[in-house]
């Protein structure tokens, strides 16, 4: 059992849960994730470790409430528990030793770039974070990232920071030059756009993939993605890959596998959060 110690709303549908998981808090590295199962009959869902406090023995999970399982998780209050947390899983982020890095975060993906920026900053790499959301209230992790370097905030409607997409700001940074690596985490179209953007500049780009997963240990093969024409399992070979080699169309398509079932689950009377109620 893993007790929830804090539940904070970061944006209209994104919640940060701080959860007791001492061993994972102690050894996790940037880029790694956990598989969470709330309780009996619940789904196993992969969640990137957004932050950890080894002394307190807690990890931070940043969850976007989109389906039945994520809504149930984000509803958990301090004192309540998550039954199963397995990890840390996946390969740690490939970090550069020195130079300049751009960390691009879109929506909830901003929470995933946070530990990457943390690790880079610790090594003395200069970090510029480019983060964005639809409008001001959707921007998350801005303060945390400001501790680690420069931050460029973009909003689609211009209600905060620079008006436009994170790709526009990233392009300006690339054009200005001197960028050694780009880390991009967010919705599939955003990661694809950033990867397409960096390619002509020849800047190495790492993206974090979020395919459907079950066990997270390489056993089921459900999370297979294509990278450089080869099938990889995101749970053990990734979840981070070279963005210039990822087949984003396949990823986006496979992510739609259970869309009908997911909607049915939300509409089902057993669902805790019924649409329209």
């Amino acid at each position, binding site marked *: 059992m893993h007790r929830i110690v804090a539940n904070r709303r970061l944006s209209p549908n994104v919640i940060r849960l701080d959860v007791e998981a001492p061993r994972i808090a102690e050894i996790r590295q940037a880029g790694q994730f956990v598989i969470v199962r709330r309780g009996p009959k619940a789904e196993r869902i992969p969640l990137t470790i957004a932050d950890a406090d080894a002394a307190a023995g807690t990890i931070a999970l940043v969850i976007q409430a989109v389906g039945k399982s994520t809504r149930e998780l984000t509803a958990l209050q301090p004192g309540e528990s998550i039954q199963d947390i397995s990890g840390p*899983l996946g390969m740690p982020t490939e970090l550069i030793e020195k130079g300049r890095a751009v960390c691009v975060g879109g929506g909830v993906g901003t929470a995933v770039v946070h530990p990457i920026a943390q690790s880079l900053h610790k090594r003395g790499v200069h970090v510029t974070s480019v983060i964005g959301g639809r409008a001001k209230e959707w921007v998350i992790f801005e303060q945390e990232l400001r501790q680690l370097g420069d931050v460029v905030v973009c909003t689609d409607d211009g209600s905060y920071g620079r008006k436009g997409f994170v790709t526009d700001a990233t392009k300006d940074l690339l054009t200005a030059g001197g960028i050694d690596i780009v880390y991009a985490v967010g919705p599939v179209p955003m990661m694809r756009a950033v990867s397409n953007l960096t390619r002509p500049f020849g800047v190495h780009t790492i993206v974090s993939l979020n395919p459907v997963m079950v066990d997270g240990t390489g056993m089921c093969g459900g999370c297979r993605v*294509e990278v450089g024409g080869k099938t990889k399992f995101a749970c053990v070979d990734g979840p981070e890959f070279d963005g210039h080699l990822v087949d984003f169309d396949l990823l986006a398509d496979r992510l739609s596998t259970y869309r009908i079932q997911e909607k049915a689950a939300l509409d089902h009377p057993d669902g805790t959060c019924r649409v329209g109620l």
Partner: protein
Amino acid sequence: MSNKISAKERMRIERQSMPEQDATARAKNFQEVNLGFTEQLALLEAQRCIQCKEAKCIAGCPVMVNIPRFIQCIVDGDLPAAARSLLGDNALPAITGRVCPQETQCEAQCIRGVKGKPVAIGYLERYVADWAYRQANGVAGDAPTAPTGKKVAVVGAGPAGLTAAGELVKAGHSVTVYEALHQPGGVLVYGIPEFRLPKQIVDAEVRRLQDAGVQIECNVVIGRTYTLPELRERYHAIFIANGAGLPVFMHVPGENLKGVYAANEYLTRINLMEAYAFPSAGTPVMVGKRVAVVGGGNVAMDAARTAQRLGAERVTIVYRRLRADMPARAEEVHHAEQEGIQFEELAAPVAVLGNEQKWVTGLRCQRMELGEPDASGRRRPVPIEGSEFEVECDVVVVAIGTRANPLLTATCPELKLSRHGHIEVDSHGMTNLPGVFAGGDIVRGAATVILAMGDGKQAAQSINAYLKTKPV
């Protein structure tokens, strides 16, 4: 009541059939297919055993169960003695009685099989094990051994790990089992379906081990949460039995379309995650109207019969050799046939076909003919030119085996592996690292529950011997 009968009478008794659920009814439910022997059937079957002085059946059993001894106890009407005898030899008899390929092991050696049908050893084993589970106070086992003060870690709570843990705790060691998933049982819970092995049987076995003092820690992935070198610092000995969970795909075009599953994923979603109860259980699965299952092993049969039970209209097993060559247990193939599973023999997939939205629409196969025998002694299937045909389907389940999962071994480069990534062990089950033993599928590649259990039992004995040489 005297159960004494003459030799002539004994030889006249025919092998008793296992009572089973009607095929039409069971193809729609997940209840167990085999219903188990009644007392009368068990007695008749037990009387067929001629109590060979040098019983070959024992040597046919990977865990060397003293078969004639427990069968004689049934004949004598002494089920407590039968249970003590059986449980002393085999830690998980209710499981092996259900899933062992007896026809290639103990029953293949039975002398009565020479001129007729062998004694139904598996059915009798199950009968005794199920009787033992119904006893509220359990079956008195051996007196507990004094604690040795030695700590042993077991990696993986599947058949090999659980068997080893049971034996090690019996020997007085402190035993902790680390399981990567959220529930112990390994393939017994994620792989083998309810209709073949009810989960309550696995749960009961696990509880019995826990009652005996085995600690089980779930959600611990060795290779990630802890590395093997870390375990070596904390434990006097380690048994690695993490299975061979890395699915093999066909490497044909279209394999990443929506609707293509590795059998591991399909079965895990349904068995472990209870996707059959979606949406009251959280994990979905694509059920499929027409399901093609590729492969001829037990896993293929399990996947096909599961799809049928979930309501698929037509389920086809695609296999590149003949039905008689299938590595699955004979009973599973027979049950699948009875339940209406279609068999496409001598067929090998060449592509998965999909529509514009990338959903599976079919499986393109090539007809095979049998050529010269290969390394396995079976005739090698050879493709026939221009023989391609399509199996219409919306779900494809790939059940052509698994490879060694490198998650653990990658964190311990000193550990000696075979060319295929399996852990190499000596005749005692020990790896090249002192005190580190291994068994089950991570050593053998995809094998059977009973062979894994045999490894677990042997490793426990070797660990006992090894620990005797070590100070506390």
